[in-house]
């Protein structure tokens, strides 16, 4: 690969008056990564992306892209970066292909109409190439947003919540497109999302941020598979179940209990043993619901953010 790191963020901070939107954020994205950038609404994801694209200036910290300081090499770097930032907005009074043509020209790219049509085909808009963008649905604009990020064949693609507003089929197609760009075209993808499953499906590395600062960072496989599971057991006799749990080594694994629901922090191989223990002691187990602690943690963050 040409670069050691595609993105290197060190101690990045951004304040808006009294609000600390990004606080001492550090992260690294390596060539070929599909990097999941997760966080609840208001966590500082879009602010970070805006700083990566020089839309806003950081108060502190440094950003290097393709091993070069962004501030001093803005234009050289942006030639190799494609991005969609938040909701997709275009010149509504122009057609889809004219929007792409204008953006390609501004980028200084000598791009043919054939190439633009091929890009529109990738996102499934080839039949609407000559329609004015103001007639497009949100989902179609989102697809066009992805097309404009791809027109100049960038090495790094920054996608800020790219599946927002898409139907399930559209979301699936975007996920497949991300995998295609990563695996077959060798692009590095920086994918911002507030949906863990979305990132889990396509990303190899990820970071979760909250209140502008890092919560956890690492390989998706490590973070999702090696962590303890929160397993909910639904049992028919709560009183008997409580007595049985207290009399066994499982009491140390019990996280919480309410009515018929008992939640345990377990390793994957302990689930069947606990299930067997309940059944052998005459309890009817009506449900066993595993949830990864990271997922639960992230859901809590998201719910807090939404509130």
């Amino acid at each position, binding site marked *: 690969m040409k670069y050691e790191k595609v993105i290197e963020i060190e101690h990045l901070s951004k304040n808006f008056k009294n609000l600390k939107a990004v606080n001492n954020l550090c992260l690294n994205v390596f060539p070929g990564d599909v990097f999941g950038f997760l966080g609840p609404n208001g966590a500082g994801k879009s602010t970070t992306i805006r700083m990566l694209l020089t*839309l806003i*200036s950081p108060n502190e910290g440094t950003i290097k892209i393709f091993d070069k300081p962004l501030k001093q090499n803005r234009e050289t770097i942006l030639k190799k970066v494609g991005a969609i930032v*938040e909701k997709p907005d275009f010149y509504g009074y122009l057609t889809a292909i004219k929007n792409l043509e*204008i953006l390609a020209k501004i980028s200084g790219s000598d791009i043919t109409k054939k190439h633009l049509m091929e890009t529109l085909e990738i996102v499934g808009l080839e039949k609407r190439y000559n329609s004015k963008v103001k007639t497009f649905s949100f989902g179609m604009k989102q697809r066009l*947003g992805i097309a404009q990020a791809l027109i100049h064949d960038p090495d790094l693609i920054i996608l800020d919540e790219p599946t927002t507003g898409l139907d399930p089929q559209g979301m699936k197609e975007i996920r497949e497109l991300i995998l295609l760009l990563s695996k077959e075209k060798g692009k590095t993808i920086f994918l911002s999302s507030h949906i863990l499953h979305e990132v889990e499906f396509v990303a190899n590395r990820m970071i979760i941020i909250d209140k502008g600062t890092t919560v956890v960072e690492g390989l998706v496989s490590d973070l999702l598979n090696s962590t303890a599971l929160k397993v909910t057991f639904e049992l028919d006799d709560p009183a008997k179940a409580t007595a049985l749990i207290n009399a066994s080594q499982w009491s140390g694994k019990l996280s919480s209990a309410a009515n018929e629901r008992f939640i345990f922090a377990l390793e994957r191989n302990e689930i069947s043993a606990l299930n067997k223990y309940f059944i052998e002691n005459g309890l009817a187990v009506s449900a066993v619901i595993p949830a990864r602690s990271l997922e639960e943690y992230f859901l809590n963050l998201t719910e807090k953010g939404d509130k």
Partner: protein
Amino acid sequence: MISLIGIELYKIFKKWRTYIGFIAIGVLIPVIQVAMHFEGDGYLKMLTRGLSSAFEFTGNLFNCYLIAHLVLSVLVIHIPFLITLVSGDLLAGEATNGTYRILLTRPVSRFRLITAKYIAGLIYSNLLVACLAFVSLGIGYLIFGAGELIVVRDSIIIFAKDDILWRFVLAYGYAALSMMLVSSLAFMFSSLVENSIGPIISTMTVIIVFIIISSIKIGFFETLSPYLFTSHMNLWTSFFDDPIEWNKVIESGAILAAHCLFFYGVTLFIFTKKDISS
């Protein structure tokens, strides 16, 4: 840069609002010309009242030049509004549409983008003045023909037929400079806000207030008047003086040009440091 300016002009001329100015000029001036065709004798008599008993006027005084001069003196006050419709939208329109995000993440400097937009705004202003000149003089010539031009200033001056066209060329050039100043002011306001109504209202407010202050000929206001750019905007009339006060015209022209550069400089300063949060 030429490619960027071309893109900006393409965007300008793809918007409906761009044509409001051309339509207004294209409709209003012929209406004035038709009205003058029927009522023009009365206007001419009013201009020459008190003189007709002492002088005999021969030749074609009621011609395209007289009407173009009248139209220029009337519309040069109103054209700024048409200019602001487009120039006030150049930056604020991008913020309103949310297109800053796709525009400013391209590998082109903000300096070049702003400059391209600014130049496109100036080109539009010049085209509007050129349209005014074409309709006033061109169509006026077809209807009324050419002739001598009678101008009432401190005294009445009658210019010979072959001594007029160059004065109009310079007058329209000066009017274009004034309109470029209006465009620059609207452009500056456009960089401060995120909707295009604000720059239109702000620019027109500044111009109207300055014109009112300039026209009040008492004490403090009279002292203030030379420092207001609006006092220098109507100096196109100097090209119809005899002799022309070139020093005054050049000085006022330089003041207008300096204002244009100042407003452009302020816009650059603001915009290159601006955080794009829209």
